[in-house]
């Protein structure tokens, strides 16, 4: 502990001396830069509209997206998920026994669990609920997990993203920092970071896709993606984006992606939840 304090003090001094006046990279400072960066880059896009991904910045594809949203391809998943929510497990209990404030609970996730020293995401909590009640865990990328998530996130629409990084636990900050490092680190044979595409190049074409800005990137999951022809989870998307730069993807709901989700969701604080979503 003492070591950490001394190190931090030394770091503050070094930074203070070299860059005198430049604020330390706290999560709050990162978030302010993050949100302001996109608003400066797309001055005509109202902040809340960033929750609509690429459609916030591309009027042409927005037209067809709005037509799709009139008959949302994720509707089935929502009702399927509602059924799951209301169907008792074999032991007679239901999801509500795990989530007494449910189903509108998505705004609470991801959160830092101090006792366990880890980031807890909503899909992880769902599977832990199942296992605590003698049910098998669901696969994390698609299928039933996407159904129940669709229902819970639909019920949570309008809640504001509000991730907290408790200041009384340095491990929470560490998890945030790991997620941040992951986001900005180049990886894979193509040597791209997440930021190379979604911070540096939003609005530019990558093959047939217009790259979306990362402001709002977590608000609408799970997402029905036409290319998938089905609904997928946020970690499925992480995995796909790792693979396209020819990096080996990480385990879905493993520590790396949970920390990444923690960082990336914190960057969106203040933006309303609008899942499930539909994308090309």
């Amino acid at each position: 502990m003492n070591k950490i304090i001394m190190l931090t003090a030394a770091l503050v001094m070094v930074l203070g001396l070299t860059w005198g006046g430049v604020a330390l990279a706290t999560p709050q400072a990162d978030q302010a830069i993050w949100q302001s960066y996109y608003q400066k880059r797309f001055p005509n896009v109202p902040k809340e509209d960033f929750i609509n991904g690429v459609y916030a910045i591309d009027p042409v594809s927005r037209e067809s997206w709005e037509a799709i949203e009139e008959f949302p391809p994720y509707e089935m998943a929502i009702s399927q998920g509602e059924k799951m929510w209301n169907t008792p497990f074999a032991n007679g209990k239901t999801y509500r026994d795990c989530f007494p404030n449910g189903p509108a609970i998505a705004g609470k996730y991801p959160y830092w669990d101090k006792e366990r020293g880890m980031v807890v995401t909503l899909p992880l909590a769902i599977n832990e609920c199942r296992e605590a009640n003698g049910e098998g865990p669901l696969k994390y990328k698609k299928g039933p997990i996407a159904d129940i998530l669709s229902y819970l996130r639909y019920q949570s629409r309008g809640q504001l993203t509000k991730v907290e990084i408790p200041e009384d636990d340095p491990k929470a900050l560490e998890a945030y920092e790991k997620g941040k490092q992951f986001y900005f680190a180049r990886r894979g044979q193509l040597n791209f970071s997440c930021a190379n595409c979604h911070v540096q190049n939003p609005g530019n074409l990558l093959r047939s896709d217009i790259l979306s800005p990362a402001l709002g990137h977590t608000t609408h999951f799970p997402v029905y993606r036409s290319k998938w022809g089905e609904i997928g989870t946020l970690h499925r998307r992480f995995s796909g984006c790792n693979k396209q730069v020819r990096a080996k993807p990480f385990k879905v709901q493993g520590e790396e992606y949970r920390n990444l989700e923690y960082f990336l969701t914190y960057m969106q604080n203040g933006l309303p939840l609008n899942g499930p979503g539909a994308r090309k």
Partner: protein
Amino acid sequence: MRTHHFSAGILVAALAAGLPTGSWADDQADFEKAMTAAREARKKAATVGGEWRDIGKFLKQAEQAAAKGDFATANQLAEKARRQGELGYEQAMSQKDVGLPAYMIAGSK
């Protein structure tokens, strides 16, 4: 280029002399050495989260080629996997301390 000519020269000489040019067992041993090196490089990259996507595939293909006796292809693939493992490790180490890039900070002002 020069080494090429040189080894080709040796091969021709060996054939002419009717000597065995290396047994299957030798080839297999060399290949296994290459595979061990590749697996170690892959593991090292993975410990820092730097493994690239296709290394596993190359290793599998290398094994298949070796099983067919095509050690030239097998060694090439093992070598490629080893190199990617080393590059992935170096890449991850070089990115250890990254944070918000300068263009982002500048663009936010």
